[in-house]
């Protein structure tokens, strides 16, 4: 019998032969598998004020474009200050006469109804979300829409139990709340904002982002179907001027904003000196930290999920990879192999992993920052996948050899671009991870439990995920440190941001 010692070590490759490579070719190409559910879009969407769809006072409309093929989807009303005034008046009236006085258990019924209606029409909403925003159908179908419904279910459950939100204290609603949401998760962000506000007894004026208004306006149809009293939720669409009017309106008792740090600062400046409550959920530049004892393949998967989920249009995207030096080379090779199997293309195709960039402007921003990365000397890797001829697409991109002073390591790119840095010790990892103006999220990958606990106390981030990434739940508060904002959304903490405590 041959002995183990003679056979123990793997036979190393003979020198001079080419390194073995895996072939991810077209031997078994998947046929197109487009989702065919009807999104039931209208040609023109009006403003939703006082429970009715009303034309904007200015008579102006703008186009909503499908970023996957640059075709027009619908016309969206452009609200001006007078429209926003009308929306606040409707919301104030609803707060004073119906919603603010309604017992919690009655409000809960409406919220449950909204959640179920959304579930009933999940496929339709998923297709609409994908058409309007460019995200892959598998994400809108399996994440955005179910998670939005989950938020309504969760907060419906709280509505009649508000006496227990803050034990020993009494809670009361604030009044009318102004909310501005971003374009990366249009329907989900709407749910994050509206569900806790309504559960607490507030009424709402909400402005969706100009590139992704459609699902918010479809949601307005659900509000009508659910029979909510008129004016409890008002949706005004438009550009930055509309948003400024919503945020600055004197009737608003509180404003909630999710979006870029830049705009967040403008809003905070404009509201300085008023007595409005504020919550801000702003940008991020999260570090995903991989130690040498991590389960490598699962870490690679998590990094991929962390940065390429929703084309990287995620405020908590793991856009900086910090990898332990001993495994850096091997890890990067595995990461590249995995990226070669990602499928970029038509967002409506059920097999698409990475869809379209949300807008032409965002594509330009990403292109500019990537060019800066190349110019500053970082090494760029992109897989050789083909992109559709029309529409806004960007290849998944990995930069290696990045240092902390590079722009691509400091600025939020908000696209499918990963910057890879290395570290030698735990302290260095913490130092690098925290060396940023942001502090929204972080990820730690290690097999060692004590290291997870240590890292989670040292990292200045609102969420620290361990051996996973981009996990969300309505029960779990989400929000940032430093310039990533303040206030929390989700969970008990999120509700407390929508009430007065007495």
């Amino acid at each position, binding site marked *: 019998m041959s002995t183990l010692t003679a056979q123990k070590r*793997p036979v190393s490759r003979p020198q001079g032969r080419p390194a073995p490579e895996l*072939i991810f070719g077209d031997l*078994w190409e998947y046929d197109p598998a487009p989702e065919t559910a009807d999104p039931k879009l209208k040609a023109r969407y009006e403003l939703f004020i006082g429970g009715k769809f009303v034309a904007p006072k200015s008579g102006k409309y703008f186009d909503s474009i499908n970023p996957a093929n640059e075709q027009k989807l619908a016309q969206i009303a452009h609200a001006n200050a007078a429209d926003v005034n009308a929306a606040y008046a409707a919301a104030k009236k609803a707060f004073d006469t119906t919603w603010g006085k309604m017992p919690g258990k009655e409000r809960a019924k409406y919220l449950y109804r909204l959640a179920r209606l959304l579930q009933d029409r999940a496929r339709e909403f998923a297709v609409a979300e994908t058409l309007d925003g460019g995200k892959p159908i598998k994400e809108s179908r399996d994440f955005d829409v179910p998670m939005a419904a989950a938020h309504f279910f969760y907060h419906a459950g709280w509505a009649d139990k508000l006496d227990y939100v803050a034990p020993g204290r009494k809670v009361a609603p604030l009044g009318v709340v102004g909310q501005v949401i971003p374009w990366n998760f249009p329907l989900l962000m709407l749910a994050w904002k509206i569900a806790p506000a309504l559960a607490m007894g507030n009424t709402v004026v909400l402005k969706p982002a100009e590139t992704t208004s459609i699902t918010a306006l479809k949601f307005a149809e659900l509000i009508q179907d659910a029979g909510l009293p008129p004016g409890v939720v008002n949706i005004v669409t438009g550009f930055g001027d509309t948003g400024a009017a919503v945020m600055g309106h004197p009737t608003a008792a509180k404003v909630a904003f999710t979006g870029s740090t830049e705009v967040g600062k403008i809003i905070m400046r404009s509201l300085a000196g008023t007595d409005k409550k504020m919550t801000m959920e702003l940008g991020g530049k999260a570090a995903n930290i991989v130690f040498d004892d991590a*389960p490598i*393949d699962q870490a690679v998967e998590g990094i991929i999920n962390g940065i390429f989920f929703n084309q990287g249009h995620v405020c908590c995207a793991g856009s900086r990879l910090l990898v332990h030096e001993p495994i850096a080379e091997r890890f990067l090779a595995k990461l590249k192999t995995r990226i070669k199997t990602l499928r970029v293309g038509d967002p409506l195709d*059920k097999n698409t992993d990475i869809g379209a960039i949300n807008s032409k402007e965002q594509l330009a921003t990403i292109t500019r920052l990537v060019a800066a990365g190349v110019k500053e000397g970082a090494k760029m890797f992109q897989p050789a996948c083909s992109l559709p001829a029309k529409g806004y697409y960007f290849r998944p991109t990995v930069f290696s050899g990045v240092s902390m002073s590079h722009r691509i390591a400091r600025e939020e790119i908000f696209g499918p671009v990963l910057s890879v840095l290395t570290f030698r010790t735990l302290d260095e990892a913490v130092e690098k991870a925290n060396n940023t103006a942001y502090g929204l999220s972080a990820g730690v990958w290690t097999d060692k439990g004590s290291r997870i606990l240590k890292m989670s106390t040292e990292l200045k981030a609102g969420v620290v995920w361990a051996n996973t990434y981009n996990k969300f739940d309505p029960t779990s508060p989400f929000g940032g440190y430093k310039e990533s904002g303040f206030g929390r959304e989700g969970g008990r903490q999120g509700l407390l941001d929508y009430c007065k405590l007495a």
Partner: protein
Amino acid sequence: MSAPAQSVFRRLFDEVGPVDHVGIEERVAKYTTRSIKKNAKLWGLKTAVSMVDLTTLEGKDTPGKVASLCQKALRPHDGLDCPPVAAVCVYPAMVKHARRALGEDTAVRIASVATAFPSGQAPLRTRLAEVKAAVADGADEIDMVINRGAFLSGEFQLVQDEIVAVRDACGSATLKVILEVSELETYDNIRAASFLAMRVLRPGDFIKTSTGKTTLNATLGNNQVMLEAIRDFYLDTGTPIAMKPAGGIRTAKQALQFLIAVKETLGDAWLNNTRYRFGASSLLNDLLRQLEKERTGAYQAPYYFSEAAESY
């Protein structure tokens, strides 16, 4: 567990690296959301047929049963343009009957489960004698079981020595090493055992999930752990090891999901029956049923398909 055994475990795990259970489950859940349509579906189904090791492993097997299994292996279904299966898989005593049914010049290979299958609890010389007898009777491939008892008590050297002995007894026959994943229990163990085996295998030899005789057999999860081990070993050494999930794969839909895992983990070079097999019996008829459905547009009743083998 005694201290030395523990350090043996730790050393092997350090060498091959850990596996995160939750991460694996998450990864394979994504395979199940892939949507395979039209030509891609046809290609997948036919490829899966060509990868089947059509199996009967029962105490009540007879030469007649084996002969009819061989006929099915050669011509899976009348009127359907589909390849023969890769192999028939039988007990050693049935190898000569299979050889008689298939003849010498045949596209279908004969695999035999030797080494006191499924427990492996026989003296080594008995197991080796069984392997040699099967090969002498005409087996092209030998499916062996590893010594799980030795693995779980940390006697890795013994496990590996036995694989080497069986490999040498195989001569030119292909060797498939059954890890019996359900008895190893953790993904960490499955990965470690995969490496133990691969380090002494020849290019083209297989690692295989299970005997099909325990409660839990091939799953997308343990398939993924083993595919990743094969990938890492190939990239390190250049030695391509083949893979065979066995047991529990009963439907065409499952088979396509396993193939998607192969395509997205190991790539095109593993999408053929020299590198990937399905150990199954009832799977074949479901594949044929789906192929007929693609051809005619309607599902046929099960009794239109011959020889629904029941074993696993």
